[in-house]
């Protein structure tokens, strides 16, 4: 039975029927790649859970992840998502401004210490005492330290909050980094992408509410349910790749027949994300479906490692397309001399990183490859 003040109670008040609620739980189970039958368990947990507070911080960002958040498509209406989470601070969509807005944030940090969720959108510039991004006279770094530091968990949404994204791209004039490098010692989940797909944010939150833990993550703090699989392996055009049917020029016969975009520079073979399965905008489409190559926006430091977007991966010396993403990532870095050995650093520092970030140790397939 639903407990008073629970999420299910809240959804009922919003006019959601029991049937719609259970349907939502089943969809969530599917998004999270849970076995059939987990829907009822999610439903049971949500009937008991209180709506947790969520604060949303924006730093060096374009608001793209906020826009993505507003497109949340299942549950079917955005206000369900707003009600599932009590969104107490979000500069773009909250009613108050100025001092009153700051009060909303202070109230959560002080009164709900260790109990609220924090979402971070945008990069955090560390250079020159953080002067390159200030909100209300405070630096992004100081705000993040305080707000993420007192949160139950932080979810970094989008490429910028993960590893600096475009503000952090070479030559990185403001010293922009992601949350993982700006605030140490916090519980952190990363949802990279440009922007993140909101399905993966709602999935992460429901996982937490349902199981009382964060979803299992890979060596870079990304949930396995969304980032385990390689785009190339689940691509709807994979059969064309295997058969050697390629687009060679935009608008050619292959393009007009929906063939493989590998030679147009597709980064699907290097990128791990659930785009082919979840697509975008209520499963309407995704770049490859629409005829454009994947640009690897969920890959580490993609502005430096995945550009030029239209260069065929073959140009990477020494590695075939079936080489693992970790190795190719290293290859790109060697080839371009871009500077930072992302994968190897991540790999070597996995244990330390997990310990520092309280991320539970888990086994993954690709870790052992």
């Amino acid at each position, binding site marked *: 039975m639903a407990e008073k003040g629970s999420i299910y109670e809240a959804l009922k*008040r919003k006019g959601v029927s029991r049937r719609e609620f259970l349907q939502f739980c089943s969809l969530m189970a599917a998004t999270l790649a849970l076995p059939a039958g987990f829907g009822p368990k999610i439903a049971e947990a949500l009937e008991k859970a209180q709506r947790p507070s969520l604060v949303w911080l924006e730093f060096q960002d374009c608001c*793209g992840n906020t826009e993505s958040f507003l497109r949340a498509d299942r549950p079917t*209406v955005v206000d369900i998502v707003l009600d599932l989470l009590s969104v107490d601070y979000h500069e773009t969509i909250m009613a108050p401004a100025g001092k009153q*807005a700051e009060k909303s944030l202070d109230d959560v940090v002080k009164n709900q210490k260790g109990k609220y969720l924090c979402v971070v959108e945008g990069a955090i510039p560390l250079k020159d005492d953080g002067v390159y991004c200030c*909100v209300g006279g405070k630096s992004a770094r100081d705000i993040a330290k305080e707000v993420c530091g007192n949160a139950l968990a932080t979810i970094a949404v989008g490429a910028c909050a993960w590893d600096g994204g475009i503000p952090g791209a070479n030559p990185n004039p403001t010293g922009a980094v992601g949350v993982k490098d700006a605030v140490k010692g916090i519980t952190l989940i990363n949802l990279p992408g440009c922007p993140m797909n909101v399905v993966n944010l709602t999935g992460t939150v429901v996982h937490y509410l349902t199981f009382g833990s964060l979803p299992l993550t890979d060596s870079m703090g990304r949930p396995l349910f969304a980032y385990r699989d390689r785009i190339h392996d689940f691509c709807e055009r994979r059969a064309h790749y295997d058969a050697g049917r390629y687009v060679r020029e935009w608008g050619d016969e292959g393009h*007009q027949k929906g063939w493989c975009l590998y030679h147009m520079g597709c980064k699907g073979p290097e990128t791990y994300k659930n785009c082919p399965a979840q697509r975008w905008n*209520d499963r309407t489409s995704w*770049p490859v479906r629409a*005829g454009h190559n994947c640009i690897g926006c969920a890959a580490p430091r993609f502005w430096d490692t995945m550009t030029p977007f239209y260069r065929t991966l073959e140009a990477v010396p020494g590695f075939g397309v079936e080489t693992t993403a970790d190795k190719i990532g290293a290859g790109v870095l060697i080839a371009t001399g871009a500077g930072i050995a992302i994968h190897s650093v991540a790999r070597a520092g996995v244990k330390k990183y997990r310990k520092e970030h309280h991320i539970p140790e888990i086994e993954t397939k690709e870790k052992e490859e």
Partner: protein
Amino acid sequence: MRAVENALGITIPDNARLVRNLISGIQYVQDHTIHFYHLHGLDWVDITGALKADPAKTSQLAQSISDWHNSSTVYFKGVQDKLKSFVQSGQLGLFANGYWGHPAYKLPPEADLMAVAHYLEALDWQREVIRIHAILGSKNPHAQTYLVGGMALAINPNEESTFNVDGLASLIKYADIAKEFVEKVYVPDLLAIASFYKEWTELGAGVGNYLSYGEFPNDSVSNTENLFLPRGIIFNKDLTKVYPVDPSKITEYVTHSWYEYKEGNNAAKHPWEGITNYKYTGPKPPYQFLDTNQKYSWVKSPRYEDRVMEVGPLARMLVAYAKGHPQVKAAVDGALKKLGVGPEALFSTLGRTAARGIEALVVVQMLPVWIGQLAANIKKGDYRVFDGAKWDPSSWPKEAKGFGLFEAPRGALGHWVRIKGGAIENYQCVVPSTWNASPRDAKGQRGPYEQALLGTPVAEPDKPLEILRTVHSFDPCLACAVHVTDLTTNKSIKVKAV
């Protein structure tokens, strides 16, 4: 795209023009609607007022202004009950610490309830109609099918995996959904709410110079005389004359911005020669105030012929109105007549907000036209959507320069590019909020936000709702707060954006 295509002399195929018009068009409609309900609406609508409303009277009000289907007493009672339970839960989320009960709120409770209901409906609606971006642009946000030379969208009615008849049918469906909501909900709500705030037709005008690059090419993008929304300039609120736009007259100052020019602090540079060398000279965080006599903004100060210009939907609608654009003229005159005010009312905070709704109406009615043209091209067997003559950089000249002018939903957007040896040598963007949020220039001229705020009456200095109304009416692209820093005499207020 337009800047590089201009530099390389590329003309995109007609289908690419139509696909881009459709992507931009639905972006206008969706952005404007979200702005009205979710980013600006609560400056005018008191949510707590909705709790006191009579649902039967709300139903009468709704049915008197529109035949939108969600208008029964039962419907509004349901919305009110949900709102009551939400408030009783004690978790007010986004609505906590709002300026509820502020004396500047003037709507009757029934109008508040109607607006709250549509706030919620619009949240669902916007997610639905933006699927046009997914169909044509692969995803939203951040569409990913734009190419220099056209679009990566493959058109072929005889394949499953390309843009085919199912794609066309989907476009028609979502364009219809978009059109119905704008016609039956957004515009009627806008006019109903505006009728209670007519004093805001006399506040917040500001600079009175308006710049529009024009948008939605009817044929080639280079034919700047044949844009659906025309290009032009209005000076000093004079609607009797529209001046042509000469892009060579655009310059940017950094006098009060945290950048430096080697020519000095009072120099102005054209974007082709523009540089963005940052040099922060403000206080170290944390700080309370910025010294506005020094540099105080990350925004440069773009000027046209050294004049301050406002950009955005109001600028576009004024230029079109002054040029006698039939659809815009009909929509503007209709709105003015309903409110019982003259064209001078447009130069105001409310005028800015109304222009956005009028533009959404005019543009949403063009979506079926562009879809029809696309279908007609496909019927003729024309599937071309990309011109690859200049795709390979080896086909480029050693040096090239170009510019692209575009009207984003928020206003005039210009990109200037210089290409050398197959790579970008310099790239400068002058974006809408740079025009509107610009700090003072070398002559001490204030930017549009600053001018619009001068003389704004503020009933409760601790709760500057009136300031928000005017700043939000520009639809700022800065997620940052605007801080009230100084109260001077006669209730005039100095603000600065940080």
